[in-house]
């Protein structure tokens, strides 16, 4: 029997099948139709809800906007879930007024997601426009939405922080804020020292699981192992030589982590291009790696950084370079029952990182090709040691060892570049798909290499090298 859910102001039982889709649960079981189904794949944010929880070992609840179309009801056991119905007061809130009066509402189908995202922004002190970066609207052309965000900007800081303060500002029903007081911390779930049980559904941030289901509508195996609840795996720690990231660390957490910003200043900004804000709040590093998408944004970054993985099973923990983790299309070195517990990134003073990605749309899109390069400080006129990776050019995220070797320690000349590009062509095998033709992806990766080199050596004149 799972812990109940506080749904807006009342406590409700969750379905026994913890794989029940959360959005269906809200709309069908509870008649809460303000939350909309528009894409069902986490691509439009019409279904956003505020998910509040107190992580194990903590006392303060944390609320964030998440995609209800992606989550299963098991994810929200013991949580407080606020839908648009729970935000409503007798008169429109400042957020609702801003959207309505500035022309941010036309057909109104995407509006609930916008109201939830903007209310969450005011709660957590985020920039309103950044908070709705993943909310798609087909009517307004975003003019009215942008104006509403501008109007809400003066309200965006300092954050309301907690629900009562949000209710005091007239942005939330007091009864719902009150209900939040009943929230209890999650029980502490120890890291599974023996890996996963033989037959179970393993999820982390659950941002991809439902998408796969949507295509196959497969019945999911019980029980569920929810890695995102393991506190120990949510930590980021550093020692002298390594940065240790728990597999359940989210993308958003990486973006806000001072240790990461200090080490690789461009990385948090680059990760703005990883899916949408609400997905980044749920999606985990471990999930991004284990899913083995050929185009996984973070896998490509971590390959260039020479990351290693800790894999845990009944046999204990083994450590494996990420570069050896991918074996074939959607196939990894993970054995039955084995889980990624940590990701370790070597810290090398003076090493710089550049990440690049080309997609049809700048934000919230899957790359045609993405690539990262890490480079050690070289000597005068010579490239330092290079590590290079790319996604979208092979059945899995690829470490371009030989191309990197062709560049490392070489003078930065057209000759070096042409040699490296020739090597690169033998290392990759892109295919034709909706993200681009084989030929395009090949040539694009050439240009991404130039982009890396120019970013890391601003004096380079790339146009003279092509």
């Amino acid at each position, binding site marked *: 029997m799972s812990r109940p859910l506080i749904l807006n102001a009342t406590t409700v039982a969750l379905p026994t099948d913890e794989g029940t889709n959360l959005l269906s649960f809200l*709309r069908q079981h509870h*008649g809460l*139709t*303000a*939350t*909309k*189904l*528009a894409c*069902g*794949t986490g*691509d439009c944010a019409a279904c956003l809800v505020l998910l509040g929880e107190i992580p194990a070992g903590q006392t303060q609840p944390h609320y964030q906007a998440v995609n209800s179309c992606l989550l299963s009801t098991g994810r929200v056991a013991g949580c407080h879930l606020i*839908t*648009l119905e729970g935000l*409503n007061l007798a008169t*429109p809130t400042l957020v609702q007024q801003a959207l*309505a009066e500035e*022309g941010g*509402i*036309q*057909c*109104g*189908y*995407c509006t609930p997601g916008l*109201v939830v995202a903007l209310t969450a922004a005011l709660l957590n002190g985020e920039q309103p426009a950044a908070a*709705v970066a993943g*909310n*798609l*609207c*087909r*009517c*307004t*052309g*975003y*003019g*009215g939405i942008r104006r509403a965000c501008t109007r809400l900007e003066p309200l965006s800081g300092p954050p309301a922080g907690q629900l009562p303060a949000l209710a005091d500002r007239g942005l939330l029903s007091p009864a719902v804020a009150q209900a939040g007081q009943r929230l209890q911390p999650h029980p502490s779930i120890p890291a599974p020292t023996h890996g996963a049980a033989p037959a179970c559904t393993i999820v982390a941030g659950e941002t991809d699981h439902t*998408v796969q289901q*949507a295509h196959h*509508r497969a019945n999911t195996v019980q029980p569920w192992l929810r890695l995102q609840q393991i506190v120990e795996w949510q930590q980021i720690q550093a020692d002298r030589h390594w940065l240790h990231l728990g597999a359940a660390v989210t993308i958003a957490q990486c973006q806000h982590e001072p240790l990461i910003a200090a080490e690789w200043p461009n990385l948090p900004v680059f990760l703005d291009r990883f899916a949408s804000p609400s997905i980044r709040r749920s999606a985990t590093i471990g999930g991004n790696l284990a899913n083995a998408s050929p185009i996984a944004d973070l896998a490509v970054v971590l390959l260039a950084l020479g990351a290693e993985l800790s894999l845990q099973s009944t046999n204990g923990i083994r450590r494996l370079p990420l570069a050896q983790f991918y074996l074939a299309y959607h196939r990894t070195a993970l054995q039955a029952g084995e889980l990624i517990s940590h990701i370790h990134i070597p810290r090398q003073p003076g090493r710089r990182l550049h990440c690049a990605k080309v*997609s*049809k*749309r*700048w*934000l*919230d*899109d*899957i790359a*045609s090709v993405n690539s990262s390069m890490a480079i050690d400080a070289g000597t005068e006129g010579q490239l330092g040691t290079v590590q290079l990776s790319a996604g979208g050019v092979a059945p899995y995220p690829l470490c371009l060892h030989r191309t990197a070797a062709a560049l490392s320690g070489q003078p930065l000349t057209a000759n070096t570049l042409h040699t490296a590009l020739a090597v690169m062509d033998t290392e990759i095998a892109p295919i034709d798909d*909706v*993200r681009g033709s084989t*030929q*395009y992806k*090949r*040539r*694009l990766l050439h*240009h*991404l290499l130039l982009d890396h080199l*120019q970013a890391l050596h601003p004096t380079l*004149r*790339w*146009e003279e090298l092509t």
Partner: protein
Amino acid sequence: MSTAPLLPSSLQNLAQGKTRFTSDLSLPQGCLHALPATSPHAHARFSQIDSAAALAVPGVRAILTAADILRRNDISNLAHDEPLLAEQEVHCVGEPYALVVADSIEAAWQGSHLVTADWTPLPACLDMASALAAGALLQPPRTFALGDVDTAWGCCAIVVSGTVEIGSAEHLYMETQCALALPRDDGGLLLHSATQSPSGVHKAVATITGLPMHAIEVVAGRLGGGFGGKEEQATLWACLAALAAQRLQQPVRLWPDRSDDMRITGKRHPYQAHFKLGLDANGRFVAYEAQLWQNAGWCTDLSPAILERSLFHATNAYAIPHVRVTAHSCRTHLPSNTAFRGFGAPQAIFVMESAIRAAAHQLRCPPETLQARNLLRDGDVFPYGMCAQQPKAEASWQMLARENGIATCRQRITAWNATQPRYRKGMAVVPVCFGIAFTATLLNQAQALVHVYTDGSVAVTTGAIEMGQGVHGKVQRIVAETLGLPVAQVQVMPTSTLRVANVSPTAASTGADLNGGAARQACLDILQRLRPVAAALLNAPAAEVMFLEGHAHAQQARVPWNELIAQAYRQRIHLSALAHYASANLHFDPQRNQGQPFAYHVYGTALMEATVDVLLGTGRIDAVRVVHDIGHSLDASTDRGQIEGAIVQGMGWMTSEEIRHDSQGRLLTDNLASYKIPDLDSSPPIEIEFLPHNGGPAGILHSKAVGEPPLVYGLAAYFALQDAITSWQPQAAAVFRAPLTSEAIFGLLHGNDPP
């Protein structure tokens, strides 16, 4: 007219998520769910449908096929070539051939993927070239002509020619198609349909079920977006729901998910074209000739009307004395393409604008110098015989160009590109001239039912479907203005075919003009009856009574509206009116292609700026400025929103939105992960100015229609990006192939072949 400071209740309901879209309606007890089983082949024959596996799915209640249709298996509007469920032959991937009805949507979905048939695949045409080779045209080619093109080439100083390809686009209304059918105890049916065309649904449901139209009520509430995609193609879902409800005598809902919606419904017509433009030594357009080909998909749908509007708008906002444009509609084995905001006009205008860029490239001058020289002037004649009356092409252009707004932009961009190797800038100006009216003249009629209740409140029903474009707000204002009441006293109701009958679709940007016209007439009819009552109360001549600010006024005396209504009711005065409106003076002879097809034209000009990263081949639209001819705006905020939304929709079509099929005709871009519409980040800030209004007639209360014309501004995204690309790769100036995705930009900059 005042701009209301209070939040209208409809907006408040939307902001609070209280509005019930069709997909939000509470399901009645025993409601079943249905989904169609669809063809896996682009073209195939079948004789047996195998339902066994689907029927074995727990919860599946029935599999219906064409044999279950009681009357005629036909849901088409024009050509009787579109069955509800395929019989013996399927013509595209995604064509429904069976309907799975189940207790749950999950069971219906599973069942729909288990139905199969004994397919015999047949040859399929997926592109226009193969359709042409097979002689597969929907209708004979049509030609609009003016002057004498063949002779005129001889008078030209230069003649340019080229080819154009324009991609398709998905409507991507946020609410997918939806219908809910409820059997009535009298044997009739109540249909809740998310449709732009309630009477289209009405007629088709009657055809399918064999019920007389009076036994069917179609209710169309607010839509979560339409954009033309729910004009013809909502009918399929409503008819499937009606069929299942009739057969099983239980309520049935159809609500396809995004991927099924994208796979099954038609989209914007892709076009190909060949153009030839001749200019004199002063850069004046002398002659224009174009061949247009549209990919219609497998059945007629609205393709001939869309093709016709392409012909109407082939010369955009330019005066050209000698014109000949021929348009072909190619029948292919794809889902039938359909209405989409702009209705074929943007495709034809893209061809015209391409021809101008080709000429500018050859003359080595900025395109805007040629455009400015050739804008329509008063009295210029369109190829369809209509005269341009007070065209605002030059006025809007000049307003945009004031203080050298266009010229300095060009200088700034040229200077920037001279020093920047990597990030190149470009610009484009695109004017629009868009004819307002259904080109099928008969559709230019509307009905409105206005009830004044004894408490003085007013309810109005028209055929206007609210889908975000603000037409209900406009009708509400028109009624409030006419009756002299606060807008809050007027409620606009969802369309029901029992309250208004035989309504035209809400389309062609005509919603406010036609339905507002009918609503205004109904109000005037009621006021005519109230006038003597008011005159008696005010002790004044009837001719002096005015209705303003919630009162009837005459000679400094006034009586509140409520009292007037109470008195009128006591006197047994009829407080309701059903009025009909038909646009005056419209006629068109489709044999001669001559007439007066439009009530008026909408004009405007947009300037767009873009940046291209030459190294990576990515593009971005930086800024948009627009001067738009809106007449006397009924609601400036709504009109601004329509312009902003249309521009971004057009821009998406020109840049990131790409429909891809595989070689078997299966849609590859069938979800929002692979089909990318603009987001906030990619949508530029848009500066809009309305052209000062001179008080002339145009549409309802001197306003002008707004829905479609500004979509044409979105074409500037292509030409601005192309302009930026051209500064690096001059050969790109002659390439007219939309959309300009990242891959397409890269190809233009660096070639498509290995270095």
